[in-house]
């Protein structure tokens, strides 16, 4: 049977509001008596408030109040979905602090009748600072005599193994310094491979290197890149009858209730999150941001609604960034390019707060994507006095692949193996294993992988075989280059709920707890439910973006989870509804429920047929499970509360995703790029880019294409310009606005872009769809990096982004010009 909705383009329910300016983002709300607050930001990379005088500020007319770090609730433990308690990390990020650990960190907030008054009041606050040691270079911090970013040390130690019955302890901050001998290679531009707190290995590394036809050993640095969502993380809060209403910029809706209630130590029932439209997240607003608690607390304290507008520069500080990873990889290749051994060493610039997952993810994704026969991974998360790092599209996986791809491309040239072929011979297939073995000796594996098919499709679309021969051939001052890259990332979670009601008016009312950050999954996932109950899309209404409106338990809208998690949940809820419809029809017309089919707005069988509208009325008459008065045991308490509030209105579809899954869901992308470099000026242009997605069943082509090429563009930004610059002497950021950080503009975009998806269903999920938000990033970045190296030869650059200055210096000198091993230059 062909699908009517799945795989088809349509106008999403938010689109007309967006294009007419009616869509309301957090800063677009106004409330009577609303105050404005402004933040005082730390002027130093690390310091302590020695003395503070707020009297002049508070005496100003129009100033309503202040919030300091001392007034924040203490960090609370986290309880996971599985009931596991994780102890609060007292060294983690707070909304305000008296010991700022990066320049730009919020210290206090002032609320006033208008923003101008708040700004002037901030200026009147007198603070005497006690300066503390700081570090803005993770590798230097590891060298003998290097400074520590935190008073307790410079790295996150390995998490302690859990003690039964005790909350899981957060890792501790420790000090790590390499010896002079360990650090010796630093002076030669190679990343020293000193002690690390964490490592794993599988296979016989020594034998792998011994049997290799080629061994490469390379150091490479990836950039720190701010998320720079176009909408800053503004938030506005008010209280009503003891409940907090928060309008905030967040990727997730239902899941933000959890984070806000934890930060504020409130009962989740007392938090209402409103976010119908969010101006981008890329991982940095996964469940909102901790600073959103500031207007909430001020609002409570002052008994007035409070708006906290975040300006662009503040957004640079609190908005988060992808951490730079400094890597050294020793890779052994067989003659055909197969990787026989891989020794991976990473120093991750963690920023000042919680350990980010990027460090470990570098190794896991490299092991999945290239299937090395033997591999060791070593890594350390080093603290620096720079803005907090947050997950950014393909966190860690992206950096790991960026460390690896230039080596793969170099090996292809050294071995005389085609770039696409070297990816092909190492590509994961089917239930490909990855990472280290667990204590039982088992390795994790993917649900499915069709990377070879993606490479084939891409090579065909790009006409790789015809075009690659032009690589490195000079015409006047111009030279072209061609690059291939593959990429991988985790792409889906399980266990969430679906909820909808078909009412006697014949329409389907779907509740969506998914955030709307532009991926359209808050609507796309539910196409599955409508398809399964035979409901035309014009008769579907989706409620989303307001946790006061009876939404089901939903996943974090991040990490490419949603399309997988919620097509499953939608499938479960629709299966529940279909079963109920069959039972209702059998009750009315006789026969067995299985003899009835649901299609075209009817449920029909041997005894007769009724419309869904009639069935909805019958569901109300029958009550019980049919109209939501009885609910399945296994749905989340959040869903139960929402479903109970909707009970009695029609036929309810409500269920939890309990479908089995063998393996861990991952998605893959193959990218192909063509660049043209002017070897006299160093300026280059991307002429063409093609990306092929292996993401299972296609749900909504327009939205999928936006993710494939949109996230590729984010990756291309990492290749061509986006980065941070720090004054190393004073620890101060010099690049903190769009103008300095250089996210790509329309003129930087490839002149041509195209995409396709394999549309091969994943066998481990009922609808077959996997997530897509992550893997295009590294594919975009590395296809361009590899194309540049194809044009210019090996060793011209040892870092991303590849700046014109680097190219000119290398082209001038005829060899790579050594740059310091830090991302922040």
């Amino acid at each position: 049977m062909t699908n009517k909705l799945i795989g088809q383009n349509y106008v999403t329910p938010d689109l007309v509001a967006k294009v007419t300016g009616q869509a309301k983002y957090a800063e677009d709300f106004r409330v009577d008596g609303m105050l404005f607050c402004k933040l005082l930001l730390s002027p130093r990379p690390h310091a302590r408030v020695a003395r503070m005088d707020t009297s002049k500020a508070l005496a100003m007319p129009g100033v309503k109040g202040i919030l300091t770090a001392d007034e924040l609730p203490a960090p609370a433990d986290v309880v996971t979905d599985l009931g596991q308690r994780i102890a609060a990390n007292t060294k983690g990020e707070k909304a305000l602090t008296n010991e700022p650990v990066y320049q730009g960190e919020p210290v206090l907030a002032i609320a006033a009748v208008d923003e101008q008054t708040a700004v002037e009041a901030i200026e009147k606050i007198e603070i005497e600072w006690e300066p503390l040691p700081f570090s803005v270079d993770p590798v230097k911090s590891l060298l003998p005599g290097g400074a520590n970013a935190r008073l307790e040390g410079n790295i996150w130690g390995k998490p302690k193994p859990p003690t039964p019955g005790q909350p899981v302890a957060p890792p501790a901050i420790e000090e790590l310094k390499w010896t002079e001998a360990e650090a010796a290679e630093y002076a030669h531009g190679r990343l020293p491979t000193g002690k690390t707190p964490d490592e794993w290995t599988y296979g016989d590394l020594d034998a792998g290197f011994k049997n290799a036809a080629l061994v490469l050993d390379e150091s490479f640095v990836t950039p720190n890149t701010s998320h720079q969502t176009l909408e800053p993380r503004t938030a506005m809060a008010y209280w009503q009858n003891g409940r907090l209403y928060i309008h905030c910029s967040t990727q997730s809706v239902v899941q933000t209730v959890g984070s806000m209630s934890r930060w504020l130590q409130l009962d989740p029932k007392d938090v209402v999150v409103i976010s119908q439209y969010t101006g981008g997240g890329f991982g940095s607003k996964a469940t909102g941001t901790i600073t959103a608690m500031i207007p909430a607390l001020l609002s409570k304290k002052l008994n007035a609604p409070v708006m906290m507008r975040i300006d662009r520069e503040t957004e640079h500080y609190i908005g988060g960034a992808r951490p730079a990873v400094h890597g050294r990889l020793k890779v052994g290749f067989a003659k055909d390019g197969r990787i026989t051994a891989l020794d991976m060493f990473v120093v991750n610039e963690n920023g000042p707060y919680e350990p980010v997952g990027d460090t470990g993810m570098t190794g896991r994704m490299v092991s999945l994507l290239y299937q090395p026969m033997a591999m060791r991974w070593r890594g350390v998360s080093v603290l620096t006095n720079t803005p907090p790092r947050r997950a950014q599209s393909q966190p860690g996986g992206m950096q790991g692949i960026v460390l690896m791809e230039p080596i793969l491309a170099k090996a292809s040239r050294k071995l005389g193996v085609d770039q696409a072929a070297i990816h092909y011979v190492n590509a994961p297939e089917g239930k490909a294993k990855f990472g280290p073995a667990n204590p039982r000796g088992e390795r994790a594996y993917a649900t499915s992988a069709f990377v070879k098919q993606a490479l084939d499709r891409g090579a065909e679309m790009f006409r790789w075989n015809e075009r690659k021969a032009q690589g490195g051939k000079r015409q006047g001052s111009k030279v072209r280059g061609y690059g291939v890259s593959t990429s991988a990332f985790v792409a889906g979670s399980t266990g969430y709920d679906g909820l909808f009601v078909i009412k006697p008016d014949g329409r389907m009312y779907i509740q969506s707890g998914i955030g709307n950050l532009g991926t359209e999954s808050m609507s796309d996932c539910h196409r599955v439910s409508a398809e399964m109950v035979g409901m035309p899309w014009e008769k579907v209404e989706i409620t989303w973006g307001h946790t006061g409106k009876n939404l089901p338990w939903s996943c974090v809208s991040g990490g490419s989870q949603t399309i997988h998690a919620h097509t499953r949940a939608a499938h479960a809820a629709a299966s529940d509804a279909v079963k109920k419809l069959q039972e209702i029809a059998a009750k009315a017309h006789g026969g067995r429920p299985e003899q009835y089919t649901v299609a075209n707005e009817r449920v029909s069988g041997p005894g007769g047929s009724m419309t869904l509208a009639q069935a909805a009325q019958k569901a109300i008459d029958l009550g019980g499970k049919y109209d939501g008065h009885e609910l399945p045991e296994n749905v989340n308490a959040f869903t139960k509360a929402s479903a109970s509030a909707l009970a009695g209105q029609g036929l309810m579809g409500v269920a939890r995703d309990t479908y089995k899954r063998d393996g861990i869901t991952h998605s893959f992308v193959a990218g192909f790029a063509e660049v043209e470099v002017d070897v006299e000026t160093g300026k280059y242009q991307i002429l063409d880019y093609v990306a092929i997605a292996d993401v299972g069943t296609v749900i909504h082509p327009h939205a999928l294409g936006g993710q494939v090429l949109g996230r590729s563009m984010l990756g291309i930004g990492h290749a061509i310009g986006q980065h941070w610059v720090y004054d190393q002497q004073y620890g101060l950021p010099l690049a903190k606005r769009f103008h300095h950080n250089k996210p790509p503009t329309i003129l930087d975009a490839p002149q041509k872009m195209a995409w396709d998806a394999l549309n091969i269903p994943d066998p481990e999920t009922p609808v077959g769809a996997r997530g897509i938000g992550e893997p295009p990033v590294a594919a975009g970045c590395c296809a361009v990096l590899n194309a540049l190296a194809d044009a210019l030869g090996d060793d011209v650059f040892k870092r991303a982004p590849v700046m014109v200055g680097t190219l000119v210096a290398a082209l001038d000198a005829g060899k790579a010009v050594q740059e310091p091993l830090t991302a922040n230059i």
Partner: protein
Amino acid sequence: MTEETPAHVSRRNFIKGVVAAGAVASTSAYLFRTTTLHGQPSAAGAVERLMTLNVNGQDRRVDVLPQQTLAMTLRYSLGLTGTKIGCDRAECGACTVLIDDVPHYSCSVLAQRVRGKKVVTIEGLADAATGKLHAVQQGVVESQGFQCAFCMPGFVMATVGYLKTNPNPTRQELAHGISGNLCRCQDYDKILTALARGAELMRG
């Protein structure tokens, strides 16, 4: 606006949308001090601050401080929140509006400087009577040209403005025409396709 906050704010009062056309809107106090604060002498020039702004074909009386930008005035005094502020410093284009048919960054134009000129915002593009979308808006809807859409009003206004000078641009010309606008979610290729489709629809 009042400095007092009712102990119980009614839910109906909460979300104030568009301010009724024709009335003098002075909610600019949200961002700028326009009311006389207790203990301060009354602000000089209060009369000169009152101006008529022609927005989306309507004359709107509005109280504007000398330092107040057009973006803030549109958003906070007139309730036209479709114009977005992404940087407030002429870097991103999210705030682009038309002033006498020419695209401008409204975050970097003082409201007092647009006296006697015609301002068009994203809210003013669709046909007010029928709700029919402008061709460029239609192009965006047809091809789902954006993601989060925070950049979208700026891109659409920049395109509408550019097409007035060059109704039949090549892709490259159009890209140059709107190169003052940043998008962080979408690939620019799809944006360009959507906006070029809009241009095509406009030509009919």
